[in-house]
């Protein structure tokens, strides 16, 4: 018998519900907590104990029709179901549900690329398509488009898009490039957004986002208003020329100048891709680990950072971007870009041929041309033990904001005994600052400090007017609570929508702080 049950659900009700689900998806695809396979639904990287988000069961439908049936059963029996696609959003919770006992609705088996249209440059995919599979599909069929992937090449095309994830090509803002969505609502009905609502609208569905009336695709991202079963996404044509480059910056204060010089290049689309400014240790982890430089805990001192930079020919900051397009255009833009960054004192500029055998440069180049890899996971070797959570505040793309956040976050990291390992991903006018908070999750004290550091950072950032774009399961409520202008008007509206669309409160309760009416973090703890 299950040792974990959803909150407030009797064992009899749970057994009846999972029994009904078995009839829909087949015995092997309802995994109860007595089955060793349930281990695959643990969040193995967070600072909190795995038990705090242990699923009572997982259900793995293989089709949209099965998803509809499962949702109907969950509603009938009032069973909370937590949707995942590939379940690889590590640092944010992976495949685990928000609270212990929720049933994971695992959509990984729905892994088809439904269509790739080579005239219009779009694809329609199911939830279980991973970047690596999508990439291989495009290569296998020799399709003249690139994909845009997150740094985790095992991650899901749809899941990353719905969680507002980013990549590194000119199509790096994934939600911006999403067009058309199919959603199962909490009553089991099926809805298509935009032009897909026309009975014969399939041809325009993936090419025109807005349809007629309110534009609603965004409601189904970072939310729990429905279960998304298909999305359309636009694909970047393979460019005739591609010129990636690196600007190595010698001083931490150079962050200000590189950000200021980059902004006009981004706004004017001279640099079209999601450019990144990466701190030393992020890149150094590809070559080395902390234990090679320091015994005991605590952050590395500046003199050691200098030694690491020198040994591996890295900067204190390392900026990466790429130019794409016709060779003549790329060459013309290169003249602008090179002269702009050359003017930063001490800056060294490298092109692909300059760092052929450099694994850190190579993985950045691969990401900027949409080739999935997992080199960034080298970070997990930095302290060992695998623990990592990402703190990700947004700010305007300005040097002053970058410096302010860098100092604020490093100060907190050092207070709690951690290295600052961060990067800035610069979109069009904003920047995502990503702190990779690395800790040994087998060390209870270190895990607790990581958790406390993260919680403090949320408050520190909010006090300065910064909010996070995405977060780990354990901090969803705290961050939702910082978006509290006008007496929490935004969250109150989200909860009203939740109640209207999912009155039984069965779909991913607690996602991004959106709880069903009458529920709260406290009632679910």
């Amino acid at each position: 018998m299950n040792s974990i049950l959803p909150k407030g659900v009797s064992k009899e009700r749970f057994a009846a519900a999972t029994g009904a689900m078995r009839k829909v998806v087949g015995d092997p695809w309802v995994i109860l907590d007595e089955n060793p396979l349930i281990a695959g639904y643990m969040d193995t990287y967070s600072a909190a104990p795995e038990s705090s988000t242990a699923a009572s069961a997982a259900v793995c439908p293989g089709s949209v029709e099965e998803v509809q049936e499962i949702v109907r059963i969950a509603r009938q029996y009032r069973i909370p179901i937590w949707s995942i696609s590939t379940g690889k959003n590590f640092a944010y919770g992976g495949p685990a549900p928000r609270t212990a006992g929720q049933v994971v609705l695992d959509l990984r088996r729905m892994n088809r690329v439904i269509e790739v249209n080579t005239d219009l440059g779009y694809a329609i995919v199911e939830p279980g398509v991973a970047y690596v599979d999508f990439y291989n599909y495009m290569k296998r069929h020799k399709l003249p488009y690139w994909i845009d992937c997150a740094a985790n090449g095992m991650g899901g095309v749809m899941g990353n898009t719905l969680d507002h994830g980013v990549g590194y090509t000119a199509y790096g803002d994934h939600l911006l490039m999403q067009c058309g969505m199919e959603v199962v609502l909490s009553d089991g009905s099926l809805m298509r957004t935009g032009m897909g609502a026309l009975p014969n609208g399939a041809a325009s569905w993936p090419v025109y986002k807005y349809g007629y009336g309110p534009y609603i695709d965004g409601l189904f991202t970072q939310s729990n208003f429905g279960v998304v079963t298909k999305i359309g996404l636009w694909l970047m044509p393979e460019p005739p020329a591609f010129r990636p480059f690196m600007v190595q910056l010698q001083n931490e204060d150079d962050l200000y100048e590189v950000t200021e010089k980059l902004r006009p290049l981004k706004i004017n689309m001279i640099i079209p891709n999601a450019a990144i400014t990466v701190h030393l240790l992020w890149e150094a982890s590809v070559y080395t680990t902390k234990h090679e430089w320091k015994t005991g805990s605590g952050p590395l001192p500046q003199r050691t950072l200098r030694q690491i930079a020198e040994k591996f020919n890295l900067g204190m900051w390392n900026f990466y971007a790429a130019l794409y397009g016709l060779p003549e255009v790329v060459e013309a833009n290169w003249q602008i870009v090179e002269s702009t960054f050359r003017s930063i004192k001490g800056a060294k500029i490298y092109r692909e041929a300059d760092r052929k055998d450099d694994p850190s440069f190579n993985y950045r180049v691969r990401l900027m041309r949409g080739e999935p890899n997992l080199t960034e996971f080298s970070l997990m070797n930095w302290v060992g033990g695998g623990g990592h959570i990402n703190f990700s505040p947004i700010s305007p793309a300005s040097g002053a904001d970058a410096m302010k956040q860098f100092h604020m976050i490093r100060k907190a990291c050092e207070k709690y005994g951690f290295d600052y390992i961060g990067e800035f991903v610069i979109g069009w006018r904003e920047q995502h600052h990503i702190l990779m908070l690395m800790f040994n999750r087998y060390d209870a004290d270190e895990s607790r400090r990581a958790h406390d550091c993260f919680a403090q950072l949320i408050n520190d950032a909010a006090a300065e007017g910064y909010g996070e774009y995405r977060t780990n399961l354990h901090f969803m409520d705290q961050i939702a609570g910082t978006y509290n202008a006008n007496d929490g008007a935004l969250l109150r509206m989200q909860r009203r929508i939740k109640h209207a669309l999912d009155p039984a409160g069965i779909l991913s309760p607690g996602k991004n702080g959106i709880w069903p009416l009458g529920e709260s973090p406290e009632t679910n703890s």
Partner: protein
Amino acid sequence: MMRRVAIVMLSILPLAVGVSAAQAGDAARGQQVFDTRCVFCHGEGLGHPAWQLLALKKGKDKAEIVGRSDLTPAYIKQVVRNGYIEMPPFRASEISNADLDALADYITHPGAASDAKP
């Protein structure tokens, strides 16, 4: 008429075909699983995090797991399903039990995959 390519409704991971010997077929299939699910971390050289860690802890001769004589199929399957320190677990919905068997065959006997190739 608009050229709508593609390759509608295909499952992502193609099945290995044209192999007659069952074991060789399994290993070839196993190699395919390795190349799509494992190689990013367990490929050879820096840039592959698991190789990097194993090289540090066990030496470069044991950093590449394919063909290592000290790994048993049962151990490989246990690690894949449960994860191990920094490696996440893989669910049955992403690596089926049959694929996991084939993967374990390939890692322990990679020569069989070569035998399967024409």
